[in-house]
Structure formats: C-alpha cells, structure tokens
C-alpha cells in the first residue's frame, strides 16, 4: 500500500511550495490542446467513421426493405396464381356440370329413341306375326277346303257308289256344300249333312 501510494506520488501533485491553483482558473495550453484534440478526433470520426456507418446502415436498410419488397411481390404473384387457379377450378366445375347436364339430356333422349325403336320393332314383329298367321290360316283354309272337298267327295262317292269323277261337277258340288256349310255356320245350326248336297 505504501509502495503504491509512493508510486502515485510521482504523478500526483503534492503540497509543494507554489501557491494553490484556482481550480476554475483558465489554462491556455489545456484549453487549446482540448480544442485541437477534439477537433482532430471530430475530423477523423467525420471522415472515416460516420460515412461507413451511414453506408452500412443504408445498405442494411435497403437489404431489409428489398427483402420485404421481394416478399411482397412474391406474395402478390402467389395471390394472382391462386385466384387464377380458383377461377380455373370454378370454370372446370361449371364445365363439368354442363357436361353432366348434357349427358343426362342425351341419355334421356337415347332412352326415348330406344323405346320408340323398340316399340316400332315390337309393333312390326306383331304385325308380321299377324300377317303370317293370317297367311297361314288362309293357306290352311285353302288346303283344308281342297282336302275336305276331295275327302268328302271320295267319301260321298264311296257311300253313294257313284263316281263323281267329272271334274266340273265335282267342283260344283263341293262349292255348294261348302256354301251350305258356311251358311249353316252363320245360321248357327249344326245339322249339316252331306245328304243335303244331293
């Protein structure tokens, strides 16, 4: 401790012989030196420190603002894209609905057409069947008539023993018989006998 204090002795003023200094007194050397040192420091700071600080500061501000601007433009782009996609989606939905509607209409139309065709076909088949049946019936009637005639004639010829080979007469007899038969059928009686032919 004593050593330390002794060391300090060299730099600190002592109660020397000279008159005490007024602490508020003006010391020109110190005043001038302060101005010079401060002026030099101010110059150096002004020249070498401030511009670099402001430059870095401005660059950083710009970098941050640029980043924000870029992000904003990206956001806007993304928004536009989203809107476009939504619009496309809506269009697609609309289109799909339209196609579905069309398909339904077409389907209904096709069903109607098919029904009509089927109806026509069935009608045609029925008609055809009817016509065939009629034709067959006619054919059957005709052949039956011929057969019945010859059978009856043969039978009658055998019964009466008289040959009715004469073609013309035979035919006449048969016709008359059939006409009688039909008349009897219409007259709703059943007493048709070959005997009446004679």
């Amino acid at each position: 401790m004593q050593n330390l204090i002794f060391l300090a002795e060299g730099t600190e003023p002592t109660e020397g012989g000279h008159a005490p200094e007024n602490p508020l007194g003006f010391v020109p050397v110190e005043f001038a030196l302060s101005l010079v040192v401060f002026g030099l420091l101010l110059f150096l700071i002004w020249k070498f420190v401030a511009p670099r600080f402001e430059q870095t500061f401005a660059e950083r501000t710009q970098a941050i603002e640029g980043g924000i601007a870029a992000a904003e433009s990206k956001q806007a782009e993304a928004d536009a894209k989203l809107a476009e996609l939504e619009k496309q989606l809506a269009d697609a939905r609309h289109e799909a609905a339209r196609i579905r509607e069309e398909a339904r209409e077409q389907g209904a139309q096709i069903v109607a057409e098919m029904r009509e065709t089927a109806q026509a076909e069935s009608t045609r088949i029925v008609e055809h069947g009817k016509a065939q049946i009629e034709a067959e019936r006619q054919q059957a009637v005709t052949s039956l008539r011929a057969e019945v005639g010859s059978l009856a004639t043969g039978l009658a010829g055998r019964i009466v023993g008289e040959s009715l080979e004469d073609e013309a007469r035979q035919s006449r007899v048969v016709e008359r018989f059939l006409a009688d038969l039909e008349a009897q059928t219409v007259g709703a009686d059943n007493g048709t006998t070959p005997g009446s032919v004679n």
Partner: protein
Amino acid sequence: MFGINMAESGGEFVSPGPNSFDFSEVPLFHLGGLAVTKPMVQLVLGALVVFVFFYAAFRRATLVPGRLQFAGESAYGMVRNSIGRDIIGSHDFIKFVPYLVTLFFFILINNAFASIPAIQFPTFSRASMAYALAGLSWVIYNAVGIKKHGLLGYLKLQSVPSGVSPFMYPLLVPLEFFSNILVRPVTLALRLFANMFAGHLLLILFSTGGLFLLEYGGVGYVAGPLAWVLAIAISFLELLVQFLQAYVFTLLNAMYISGALADEH
C-alpha cells in the same frame, strides 16, 4: 500519497483540495519547452481510444455485423438515434451526428479515466478542458442558428419569446438573451467540471482518510475500513455520474442545436 505527507508533517491529516488537481509542478515530460501533464496525455489517449474503437469497428463493415462492429454500431446508433434524431429531428440531424458522437464518447472515455486503474483521474476536472468543449458547443449552436436565420433573425429567435405581450419584452428579452446566449456555455462547462472535480475529491478524501484513520489506530481500525467501503460505493456512483455527464453534455448540445434550427421559438 497523503499518507507520506501525513507522516512527514507529524500525524496531521492533510485534506485533499484544489492542489490534488494541479499537475503543473509534476509534468510527465517536456515537449519543446512545453510541460506535458497527465491530463494532457489523457486527453490524447482518450481521443485515440475513441477513434481506434470506431475505426476498428467499421473498418470492414458488413451487412451482417461481427461482434466488434455490432458493439460499434450500438454505441454509434445510440447517440445517432436517441440523441441526434430524437432531439434535432430527422430532417437535418444527420450532419450533426459525427459531432455528437465524438462529443459523447470523448467525454465519456475521459470521465471514465477517473475509474480506470493506473490512470484514475477525470480529465475534465481540469476546468480549462471543459471550457474548451463548452466554448466549442457555444460557437457551433450559434453558428448553426445564424447560418439558418441570419444574425438578426437568430437573435430574435433566441431572445424574443413568442406568444407574449410586447409590454413584457423589456423584461423578457434581456432575460432570454442572457439565458440562451450567455449562460449556456458557462453552465455546460461548470456542470461537467464540477461533477468530475467533486467526485474525484470525494474519492481521494475517503481513500486517504481511510488510510489515515487506520494508521491513527484505536477507533480508526473500524472507521478506516468503513471509509474504504464508502469509497467503493462512491466509485460505483461515480461510474454512473461519468456516463450521465457525458450524456447530458451531448443531449444539451443537441437541444441547443435543435433550438437554434427551430422555426418558432
């Protein structure tokens, strides 16, 4: 230091006084006939420290700052934004920023010398050095005002209060002139000087007094260490005062400049 004196003067305590701040008898060295004292060396050292710190911090300034650059930017930005921009206003603060930054850190480091071991002397407890900075402040804020408003316009701005009946002018104009033009540099200088002076005096008193009490013995074995504990507490208080004085000096400079630039008083 005073322990020795005390011993030589036969057990009489020599209280610290203005002589504790007078280095004219013990210059560190001579430079061309000029006696260079400790406070002068401190002044230069302080300026060097400030410049080297900022120069190193911004020598390779990058967008993403390193540790040193971040420290430099925080320090610079604090004065730039919270003193310069907030007081002077964003329109024309930028050209005063180097001045305010230099002022703040130059005063701060020179005040801090009071607490730095092996230096332990506040540079601005030398009144003439405080006068220099206060005088420069006076020149700067008046020059700024005169440049903007012209000499008469500036004097009117600083001396004639607006919104006051002209009947009051004979009373108010001299008062305003006195307080805005004449007193400001004096208070600036005295505030800085007196705070540093008084703080250092207190520290000397408590540390040398503590030593004296210990050597005196008896009740001094209790009172001496107590005085040293108080000295430590006062050291912490001084750290705060050192910062505050640098801050207030710079803040007032900014306010004076802002007032000189104002359109309406």
